[in-house]
């Protein structure tokens, strides 16, 4: 009864309706929440895949909400770029949902309905941000995502969680407000809010102060949202002290979606020639990306806490994508888009591992990782795959996006960016082998403290894997990292190369 032309709406509406269904079901019996969540996200994922299929078959789709033609009404636009991002978002959210069950039961037993309602609302917001073709609608969904994230983070039982959340509220609001302000500048100059419409009206206004300023303000807002160094201050604490399930949802997705939105603005609201030529400093932005990569890696190196180290790596990875997008050549953009996909999965893999460590060892300091290779061989194997992908060892996915970014850097003559990429690979190698060493050499640290004969400990540790609902998603993701690595060629030739704007 609902034809395929309606799938774009279904993708958003089903999770939204599910949010209320979950909330109401929670009043009756909280055991209903989890299945509902999975069901809704499953439907959304199916719809997303179907839509991507349509896009690959017959090109970009436009969907008119309320039946009003753009620019009067709000429009959904799905092309190769956000089609891909939508699929990734849905899949990651689904896996995170599957994974969340046990940890939520453990960490937030009396708030399950609230948690899952906010969880799926956050997913709805992310999907809406990705799919919408209307500049203001994007702001509303950005705020939904933000509000839900604040609460999901503040719910953490860690002592620092509320303060981290509050900092996030203040900084996040600044970011969103800047975005709104930028849209306002666009509106006062053009009188339109629809992205495609703006794209057609803007060119003759490119040189006006207001339009250039709007671009600056929008970038600032988005950079705050994506924690682009040095605007990253809110991220590490927020993601470290958030509940496990929250971290697994927002750490892979939020920054990536913001990066996607930056690409959307650069290419579909303004135009590549504006972003790269009219708007002067494309090169300095790449250097900022270099700074982000180097700083992120170094700060990660300084951490004593596993989860916190991962959060700083996210800061570094953001540098990869921003830099790639601003290299202003096909290789760079391809690499950045491919890295959006890969990094979402890598981050998911690593945060899954961290979650399992928290679940089993009741902590996420490095000392909690002792002896895990014997305690949870499968988990650590999957983690190793994720780590290798972060380092960029073929044939894991991480290698190929890095490959494209390196090519782009060389073609653009950005040796600094190339050096930064290699540097961060080396740092990642150091970081992850530090972790692997701890987990591989040191005896199981049930009792904290460095004593305890190692030779003895080899035999006492029994295999004790994480529960299936946590292990299965982790293994799936690590398998996906390998699969995407091997098929990245077809991914690029069939989807991403169409996402790169014409003229590159």
């Amino acid at each position: 009864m609902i034809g395929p032309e309606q799938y774009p709406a279904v993708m958003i509406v089903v999770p939204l309706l599910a949010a209320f269904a979950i909330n109401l079901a929670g009043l009756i019996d909280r055991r209903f929440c989890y299945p509902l969540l999975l069901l809704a996200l499953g439907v959304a994922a199916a719809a997303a895949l179907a839509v991507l299929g349509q896009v690959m078959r017959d090109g970009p789709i436009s969907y008119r909400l309320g039946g009003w033609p753009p620019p009067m009404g709000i429009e959904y636009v799905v092309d190769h770029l956000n089609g891909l991002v939508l699929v990734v978002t849905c899949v990651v959210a689904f896996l995170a949902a599957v994974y969340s069950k046990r940890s939520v039961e453990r960490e937030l037993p009396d708030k399950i309905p609230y948690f899952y309602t906010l969880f799926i609302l956050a997913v709805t917001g992310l999907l809406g941000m990705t799919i919408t073709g209307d500049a203001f609608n994007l702001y509303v969904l950005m705020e939904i995502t933000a509000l839900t994230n604040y609460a999901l983070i503040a719910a953490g039982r860690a002592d620092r969680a509320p303060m981290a959340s509050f900092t996030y509220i203040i900084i996040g609001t600044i970011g969103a407000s800047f975005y709104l302000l930028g849209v306002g500048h666009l509106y006062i100059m053009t009188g339109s809010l629809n992205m495609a419409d703006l794209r057609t009206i803007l060119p003759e206004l490119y040189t006006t102060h207001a339009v250039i300023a709007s671009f600056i303000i929008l970038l600032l807002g988005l950079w705050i949202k994506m924690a682009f160094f040095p605007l990253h201050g809110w991220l590490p604490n927020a993601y470290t002290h958030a509940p496990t399930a929250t971290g697994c949802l927002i750490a892979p997705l939020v920054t990536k979606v913001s990066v996607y939105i930056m690409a959307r603005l650069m290419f579909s609201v303004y135009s590549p020639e504006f972003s790269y030529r009219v708007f002067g400093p494309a090169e300095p932005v790449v250097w900022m990306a270099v700074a982000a990569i180097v700083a992120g890696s170094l700060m990660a190196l300084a951490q004593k806490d596993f989860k916190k180290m991962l959060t700083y790596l996210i800061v570094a990875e953001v540098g990869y994508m921003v830099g790639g997008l601003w290299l202003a050549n096909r290789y760079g953009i391809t690499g950045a888009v491919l890295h959006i996909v890969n990094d979402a999965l890598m981050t998911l893999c690593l945060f899954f591992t961290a979650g399992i460590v928290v679940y089993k060892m009741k902590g996420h300091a490095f000392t909690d990782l002792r002896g895990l290779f014997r305690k949870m061989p499968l988990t650590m194997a999957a983690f190793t795959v994720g780590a290798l992908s972060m380092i960029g060892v073929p044939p894991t996915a991480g290698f190929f996006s890095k490959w494209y970014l390196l090519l782009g850097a060389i073609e653009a003559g950005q040796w600094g960016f190339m050096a930064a990429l290699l540097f961060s690979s080396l740092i990642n190698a150091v970081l992850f082998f530090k972790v692997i060493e701890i987990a591989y050499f040191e005896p199981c640290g049930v009792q904290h403290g460095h004593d305890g004969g190692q030779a003895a400990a080899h035999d006492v540790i029994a295999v004790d894997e994480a529960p299936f609902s946590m292990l299965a998603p982790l293994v799936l993701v690590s398998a996906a990292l390998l699969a995407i690595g091997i098929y990245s060629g077809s991914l690029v030739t069939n989807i991403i190369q169409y996402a790169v704007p014409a003229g590159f």
Partner: protein
Amino acid sequence: METMVSIKPLLAVLVSLAAVAPIAFSGSRPNRREGWTFGAGIIKLALILSMLPTVLAGGEIRYTVAELLPGLAIAFRVDGLGMLFALVASSLWLVTSAYSIGYMRGLKEHSQTRYFAFFAVALSATIGVAFAANLFTLYLFYEMLSLATYPLVTHHQDHEARLAGRRYLAYILGTSIAFVLPAMVIVYQQAGSLDFVRGGFLAGAGLSPALLGLLFFLFVFGFAKAAIMPFHAWLPAAMVAPTPVSALLHAVAVVKVGVFAIFRIVTGVFGPDLLRELGLGQWLAILAAITILVASLIALSQDGLKRRLAFSTIGQLSYIILGAALLSPKGMTGGLVHIGMHAYGKITLFFCAGAIFVATGLKNISDLDGIGKRMPVTMAAFFVGSLSVIGLPPTGGFFSKWYLLQGTLQAEQQVMLFVLLSSSLLNAAYFLPIVYRAFFCPPAECRVHGPLREAPLWCVVPLVVTALCSIGLFFYPDLFRRLAEIGLGL
């Protein structure tokens, strides 16, 4: 020469990888577990042998697994070089597996299942490097080998192993990421391809000599498994590994992968002509010469048997690199053949060291006085092995060294001739005393007294086999020579 497409190379790579799962799951039944290892080894060897005739007939076997990115594929190509290396590695895997059984069980090592599993992975990677059709595939398996050998090197999981493993990865992984990866990307971006072509494909790409020089040395140092100084320090450190690991990986697989990669760079990427006209071969030769002499001198001063062997390995590897650097037909042939010859000789020596350790628990040369009376077979094999490494008849080592010497003359580099000769003397100087002590010195303490007691049979048989092999190679070196010449297109 005809080119045929066949999946055999892929199978040859995957067979040991496929064996990992059954090995891991039959951990509780050691005999069945080792059964899997042998099965995989035999199948692998059979597959490789089945490809031998085609290669000897001057043919090539190609197989493309996946086109990862445009112009960048996981592809296999079996030619003379690859076949030579694959033969050596896969045949010695069987022997080493047998030896491992004796060694590991003799010492009651922990987590042997993990050991055998990763051994299988390492072998897959080695064969993958041997059959790689392009630089990317080679890099892929090179990294795979680095990671697969990490758990083997750090098998003991104690503090020493931890430090050794750290150094191992720092050198191997660090150089490959910091040097090889950027060089590879630049080559791909400039030349648009990474496929090995006999005679090299960079000649026509029109790169500036400066850039070419930079790239060349990025590659040479990047493949740090070749242990060219100053990137050699990982090799002695890695000797904390159980002896079979040192034997196969640090006399055959890992280090030879390094030199093999450099051979590929010389013959397949740059091409002798280009290197000659840029004068890069000269520089590489000098590096190799320095490494040869310094390593031999250091080896003299080592008391730990395995450490002495390690430094001797560093020197011997540079023989091969020198052969490549000479860029003269005989020299390169000699270098390639030396891959095989040195493998058999050196693995024998390592086996002996392990056997002595298993039987008596001794590690240092100074303790070995009179051990020959107690372990005559082992020490006899040791003697043969050292002859081969020194390069004296009747062992295979003589043959390859003979070719290398001729190569130096062919390339009119008399200096290198003297380098080789003097290093032979040094080799003699650090090997023969051991044999002398073993047989003719009176035992210092009572520790090595007592009746004749060899290491377990599982240990002794393999080292006898390899010793005999290196003698046999003196009389029948033609297979390796032919393969080398085919590979070089002579």
